């Protein structure tokens, strides 16, 4: 039942006070013909409806959530408390006397510079993809400022996340996808061939989407820079190296981070995130405005003089920044570095426990995540990655990322994160191994799964063919 079906004419939970001034009636020619169809429910009905719906959702607080590439780590409660402070929630973006907020943004920028080895940050982008778009526009402005107008191509490996090529297209670039090498890394030969005087940038995440750290990174940087291009770091996979190995030291010129992944801000059912962009000095004058600067302990907004413009009306998803700030300040240097290491330890442990059962595409040692293929299992039993994922739901865990990266057939991508205990990982490994046995012995049973969830498998073909997009 939807909230509309629970509605009854005349009901409302509206707690508004009575109007305390004379009524002003607008010219009727401006008014809508009929009232907007909105719910009509009392407060308790409202509470029960959405409480019931919340119970049909699954968050990190509900159980193991090894959704690869998404870094579903625990979202500390102190972050939420910090972001709920009146001094943050009740300040208007255009008001005066906001030194605390500006200082927070400035310190966060400095901390992110320290962690990534960059020189300057903007906190304006609202998510990773938004950060990609922003950074690519900066790259474009950089080349144009040097009268280098031929650089209209962005190169990305075929293992890249879909947002990479999509953002490049939005920024007005042509995209060259290069194949990965047989071990899943950037193919240096293919890269050499692809770069040239039309190369604007190469987009890469390291560790890559297979969870492998690409040790050739310096060579890659050389190839790209020699050709006159810039090297872009997709920070979605920063978690296992945060504070230990810095994109800036690897040769990257510009990075986006996902504060909702690496820096523990909650994912909110699909956002709001935050996708700050950091850059080396050569790109700083192109950053979107406003940026925050400090002068003798006074903080203020400023505009980089060749700014690409703004990418959001105000300064970014400020409350998400507060959450990431709380995380970094609580943990500090050692806490951040140790968290990174434990994320790699957890991923390697879970991988070690599953290795004999599935071909694994993440080398002997992975970073924060690893990818297994269910291709063989599917050939033998008919049980696919999807079937296996659905079966995991019945066991109380959130499935891993499915069918990504595209270069692995029947891929399942696990990212346990550092906040999970050995017991949780053991339990997950036991579940998956048991499912593997079940697939061999009783493959038919999978087609029905999941059985214990609020709904069974939905008919997605019907949803797309006969779209019902509102109630």
């Amino acid at each position, binding site marked *: 039942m939807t909230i509309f079906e629970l509605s009854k004419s005349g009901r409302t939970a509206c707690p508004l006070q009575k109007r*305390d001034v004379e009524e002003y009636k607008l010219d009727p020619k401006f008014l809508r013909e009929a009232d907007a169809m909105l719910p009509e429910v009392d407060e308790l009905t409202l509470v029960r409806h959405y409480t019931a719906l919340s119970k049909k959702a699954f968050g990190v607080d509900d159980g193991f959530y090894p959704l690869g590439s998404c870094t579903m780590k625990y979202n500390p409660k102190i972050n939420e408390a910090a972001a709920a402070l009146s001094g943050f929630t009740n300040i208007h973006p255009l008001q005066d006397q906001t030194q605390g907020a500006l200082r927070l943004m400035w310190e966060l920028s400095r901390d992110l510079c320290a962690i990534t080895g960059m020189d300057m940050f903007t906190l304006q982008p609202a998510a990773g993809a938004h950060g990609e778009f922003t950074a690519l526009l900066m790259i474009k402005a950089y080349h144009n400022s040097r009268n280098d107008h031929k650089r209209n191509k962005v190169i990305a490996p075929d293992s890249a996340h879909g947002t990479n090529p999509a953002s490049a297209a939005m920024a007005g670039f042509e995209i060259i996808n290069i194949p990965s090498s047989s071990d899943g890394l950037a193919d240096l030969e293919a890269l050499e061939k692809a770069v040239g005087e039309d190369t604007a940038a190469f987009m890469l995440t390291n560790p890559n989407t297979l969870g492998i750290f690409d040790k050739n990174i310096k060579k890659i940087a050389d190839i790209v820079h020699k050709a006159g291009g810039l090297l872009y770091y997709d920070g979605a996979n920063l978690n296992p190296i945060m504070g230990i190995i810095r994109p800036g030291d690897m040769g990257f010129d510009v990075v986006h981070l996902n504060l909702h992944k690496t820096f523990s801000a909650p994912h909110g059912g699909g956002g709001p995130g935050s996708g700050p962009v950091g850059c080396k000095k050569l790109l700083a004058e192109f950053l979107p405005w406003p940026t925050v600067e400090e002068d003798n302990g006074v903080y203020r907004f400023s505009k980089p003089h060749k700014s690409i413009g703004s990418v959001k009306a105000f300064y970014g998803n400020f409350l998400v920044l507060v959450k990431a700030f709380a995380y970094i300040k609580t943990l500090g240097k050692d806490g951040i570095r140790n968290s990174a290491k434990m994320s790699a330890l957890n991923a390697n442990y879970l991988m070690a426990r599953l290795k004999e059962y599935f071909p694994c595409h993440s080398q002997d040692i992975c970073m924060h995540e690893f990818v297994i293929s269910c291709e063989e299992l599917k050939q033998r039993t008919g049980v696919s990655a999807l079937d296996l994922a659905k079966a995991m739901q019945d066991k109380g865990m959130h499935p891993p990322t499915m069918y990504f990266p595209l270069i692995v057939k029947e891929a399942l991508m696990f990212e346990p994160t550092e906040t999970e205990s050995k017991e949780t990982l053991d339990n997950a490994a036991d579940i998956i191994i048991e499912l593997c046995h079940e697939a061999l012995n009783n493959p038919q049973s999978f087609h029905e799964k999941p059985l214990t969830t609020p709904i069974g498998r*939905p008919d997605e073909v019907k949803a797309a063919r006969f779209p019902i997009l509102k109630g």
Partner: protein
Amino acid sequence: MAKYYPHTESDIKQMLSVIGIDSVDSLYAGLEELKAEDIDLAEGMGQQGCERYIDKLSKQNKVYSSIFLGAGAYNHYIPAVVRNLAGREEFLTAYTPYQPEISQGILQTIFEYQTMICNLCGMDLSNASVYDGATALAEGLLMLAEKGKNKVLFSEGINPKYLEVVKTYLRAQNVEIEYVGLDGSGKTSIEELKRKLDQNTFAVALAQPNFYGVIEDAQAVGEIVKQRGANYIMSCNPISLALLKTPDECGADVATGEGQPLGMPLSFGGPYLGFIAAKQKYMRKMVGRIVGKTTDSKGKEAYVLTLQAREQHIRREKASSSICSNQAHCALMATLYMAAMGKKGMKEVASQCVSKAHYLAKKMTALEGFELKYGGEFFNEFVIRSKISSDKIIAACREKDILAGLKLGENEILWCVTETNSVEDMDKLIEVLKEAM
């Protein structure tokens, strides 16, 4: 030392032995050269220390007890029930509902959100949200792009901050922006629109109400746009839509806006909520996530992410947008807000905004040397020209713990009134202005 991982020494030992290595550092073998020696990051404060520090920072921001500033961010009453339900961890700590079987709660709230936005706008479909009102307008404009045309007409009544964002997005696609100014009443000039609307224009963008609070003759604009065969996009304050003609009634193809007034606190500018709703024929061009209703294997009602062939994870560089994570939790807040206020309450909020804004405007213009800049009908914001300087007014207000409107010029201020401004607060503001004279 503060930490959020649970590993004991013995856990680590056992895990390493299963992996087959002897130290955690071996996980980074071969990477020694790349490791940063030291980084310029302070040691952790721990939770207690961090709480104290952040609390201190929060107190260095001034929380005004009376707010008359809007200009794109609006101070509305947020019922406790909205904050409470939005805070439920299942909503907060989940991600995009990729696994529908265990995400029905999230999917259904998005479906309800889409329905409410469609009903407010009179549109056929809505997405699950974009980053904010400004990017909603920018992405909405790109949805309307047509081959062989490369110009949009942009009303000067649109929030200048939105313009900055739209410029950034459109420049990347080599789309030209031409401006349509306001007439004496503060409405977008119909004459100028007619003059500038040519064969090369694929879309016309209008704000309702506009940045200066004036209610646009959006239907008249719509008629002209249709006559000339262009597309029409509006950027609306969603609260105003409870009263005003819907974008559909005005002839719009796409309706966008900033959803912040629907239950989100001011929060120094974010997170807010961009909404985009459109007529049926733009279904395949819509950006971002969309939830649809279907059935499960047993015929039970079910919700799923749908029409994904538009999106980056399928279409990559050919996608309609690169958006992945959106503002889902803000959309949840908007859903809860609209459900709590309901059909009657939403209209009541809007009409209180109108009545109170007119009360204040009347009182202000009764003061000597204060007048309305524009003659047009307004919603909850209005521009006042005054003999005394804007700076003096703003400073006088500050002294009395009142956040004055936005300074537009030496003697012009954009004032905003919502249902949160009581008659006493408004009378007090008038007293402050009298004293300042």
